[in-house]
């Protein structure tokens, strides 16, 4: 897309046409209009190519037989996920490259098979990774095992980019012994319309992380647990007296993408007593949504308790990580990921050496006790990734072997050694929980009250509309305006007011 016409056209000053002066008798007639069909048209047309190139790629294998190449003695498999050594989700990438791959290769070798496993690691924003993966799968290319966010499963399945596991690898997909260890609600992460598309390796939850040192300076307890939004705001006002500290930060705006929805709007909405999708209808800009947007206004409006700019700039989320790690943010609503892969003193992307002593975590309170969804006083949101087999893999059986190896109890134990995470497997959790207080907190206190996002194709568009509603409040519009705009947009997305719950 970048300046397409430039290389060719840079020769222009040297072209004879431009050296000939107008009206010169030496000027041959056919030079009269050197630009008539010159580089202008190609340069103008070139912009189209980008658009068209998106859709006109193709190739890859077209066989759908689950048993194809099942007897191959030598083969290569690839794994792709948004994790890269030394960057995003570094521990996960190291686990894949240093534990899983050598282990799998050795195990296959024992069976007399020569396997090569290649890891394609990325360290980019989730939205960019999603686009890349969708384009890969669309062109029947991409890795044999791709990692997807659970909320993408619906739209990828509808687009035919991924297929039910039983279609790709045959009936053995349902008889994998690991399924018995994964609870049905977590299995839903990798399912769409009652069919399994992949295996979810883990799940998570959202909590309020706070800096104990800052709270102590502001006169708040070390085991802080707000029981209403007012408690949170009161703590924010106390923290505001500290110089150079941003009291509260809750994700908002479009720059953060899904992070805004999962650890911003949706837990708050649940706290205001509404689910984004329930009873066959999507929640519009009614009272609950206005409450949520009103809270955002208290954070990012004039004299607000949060840093508005963090929610607007392109790398705002990374910056919020750094600021929290360097004791500049009091309270931050984040997921388990934040503790595990961001602040982790060993290999986080914003290491906090004294994390275990200085960072506290509290449940997200409902607006007021008992006012949350299902009458709850505390709420959370969960999600997680899903590993799926590329329907166009050349080796479906072998790819499924690798997929189950990735999700075996032993591999998972290796994965969470020294890097706490709630896995999808109950047998692994039962052991890992014992030694980690944070993980225990998440599994025992957060998971029982948590909600999952709807696995529907329209969800990602609804999510964007929610992000835009918060962005509008951050930019200074009132909650009522933003809510009305959101309702209008939502009706356009989900097919009219009949699918929207206004209340």
């Amino acid at each position, binding site marked *: 897309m970048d300046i397409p016409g430039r290389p060719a056209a840079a020769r222009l000053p040297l072209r004879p046409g431009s050296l000939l002066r107008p009206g010169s008798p030496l000027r041959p*007639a056919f030079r009269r209009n050197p630009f008539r069909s010159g580089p202008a048209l190609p340069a103008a047309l070139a912009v189209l190519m980008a*658009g068209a190139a998106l859709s006109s790629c193709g190739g890859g294998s077209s066989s759908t037989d689950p048993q194809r190449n099942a007897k191959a003695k030598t083969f290569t498999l690839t794994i792709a996920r948004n994790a890269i050594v030394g960057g995003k989700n570094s521990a996960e990438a190291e686990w894949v490259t240093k534990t899983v791959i050598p282990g799998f290769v050795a195990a296959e070798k024992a069976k007399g098979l020569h396997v090569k496993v290649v890891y394609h690691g990325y360290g980019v924003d989730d939205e960019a990774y999603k686009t890349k993966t969708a384009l890969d799968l669309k062109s029947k290319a991409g890795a044999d095992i791709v990692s997807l966010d659970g909320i993408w499963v619906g*739209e990828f399945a509808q687009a*035919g980019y991924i297929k039910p596991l039983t279609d790709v690898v045959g009936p053995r997909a349902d008889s994998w012994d690991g399924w018995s260890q994964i609870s049905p609600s977590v299995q839903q992460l990798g399912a769409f319309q009652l069919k399994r598309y992949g295996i979810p390796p883990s799940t998570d939850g959202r909590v309020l992380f706070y800096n104990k040192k800052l709270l102590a300076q502001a006169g708040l307890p070390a085991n802080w647990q707000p029981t209403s939004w007012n408690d949170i705001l009161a703590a924010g006002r106390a923290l505001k007296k500290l110089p150079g500290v941003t009291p509260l930060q809750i994700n908002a705006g479009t720059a953060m993408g899904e992070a805004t929805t999962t650890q911003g709007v949706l837990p708050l909405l649940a706290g205001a007593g509404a689910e984004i999708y329930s009873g066959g209808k999507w929640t519009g800009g009614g009272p609950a949504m206005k409450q949520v947007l009103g809270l955002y206004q208290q954070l990012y409006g004039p004299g607000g308790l949060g840093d508005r700019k963090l929610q607007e700039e392109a790398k705002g989320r990374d910056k919020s990580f750094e600021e929290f790690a360097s004791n500049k943010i009091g309270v931050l609503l984040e997921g388990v990921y934040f503790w595990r892969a961001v602040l982790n003193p060993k290999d986080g992307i914003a290491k906090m050496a004294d994390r275990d002593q200085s960072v506290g975590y509290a449940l997200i309170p409902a607006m007021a006790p008992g006012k949350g969804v299902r009458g709850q006083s505390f709420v959370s949101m969960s999600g997680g990734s899903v590993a799926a087999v590329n329907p166009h893999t050349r080796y479906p059986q072998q790819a499924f072997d690798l997929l189950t190896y990735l999700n075996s109890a032993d591999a998972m134990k290796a994965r969470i050694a020294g890097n706490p995470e709630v896995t999808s497997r109950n047998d692994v959790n039962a052991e890992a929980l014992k030694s980690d207080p944070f993980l225990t907190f998440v599994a025992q206190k957060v998971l029982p009250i948590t909600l999952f996002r709807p696995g529907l194709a329209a969800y990602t568009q609804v999510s964007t509309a929610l992000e835009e509603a918060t962005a509008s409040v951050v930019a200074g519009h009132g909650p009522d305006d933003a809510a009305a705009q959101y309702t209008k947009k939502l009706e356009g997305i989900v097919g009219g007011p009949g699918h929207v719950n206004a209340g």
Partner: protein
Amino acid sequence: MAPDTSTRAEPTRSAAVDVVGLGRRRAAAFVAPALVLIVVFLVFPALWTLYLGVTDYRLTGLAATHPHFLGAKNYTDVVADGRFHNSLWLTLEFVGGSAVLGQTVLGFAIAWVMRERPAAVRRTVEALVLLCWILPGSVVAFLWLALLDRDGGTLNAMLGTPGTAWLLDHPMACVIVFNIWRGTAFSMMLYTAALGNVPPSHLETARLAGASTWQTLRDAVLPKIRRHVLTSLLLVSLWTFNDFTPFLITAGGPENRSEVMSAYVYRTALGEGRLGFGAAISLVMLLINLLIAFAYLQALRRRRT
């Protein structure tokens, strides 16, 4: 690039039709590979975009496998979309500010000032200006992010204004200044070549007649390089109109306040997965490009009669 000669130059008509004496068939055989490339890489994608633009084709979901025919709906939606108006206006600001005013004026100024300087000075300046142009876009974008960063940015350190969020408070100004910095080299090179075409005797005469610099530029230099100016403006405008680099610096934000056309297409088509709608925007963009090109070509033609 086929010379359009059939309507003029009557006395040499036959020679003009068969300039190199190949005959029609062989000439056609020589041109064929180029035409095939143009069809495959330009005409087909353009038509394909036209087709996509009338569907609700998406990157994911049901509409990825079974797109519906929408007729002109995408196009009417684009034209009615407030985000499109915003984006078009920002793009015009971007083109007008950075290409037409910035790069052209600065490029000419450098070419004019450097024309009689010692070769060493001239070469050094030219090399530095060229360097801005030849560095890869992603590298340059990263450098500018480092320059303009709110907390550790070089600019804030130099001005003593810690915490000023240039990219958030003045996103358009930032990308305009950036693009001037980035693209001045082309105008500079073109004008350096053009100024070489101005006969020294004209400049000498102007000097003897006691003309001021402004008068010299207006009456002696400009008439000689007018066509170069228009050429440069045409190319630079089109490149800038389609330039994607601003996206690397501001990602179109905050709140779409720097969402120029190319960023708008990218975010719509790939970010939101609305490929059909994105194709419709692309086509509208193409029409605007053609309009710009047409306006310049008209200006070029008028100068000559």
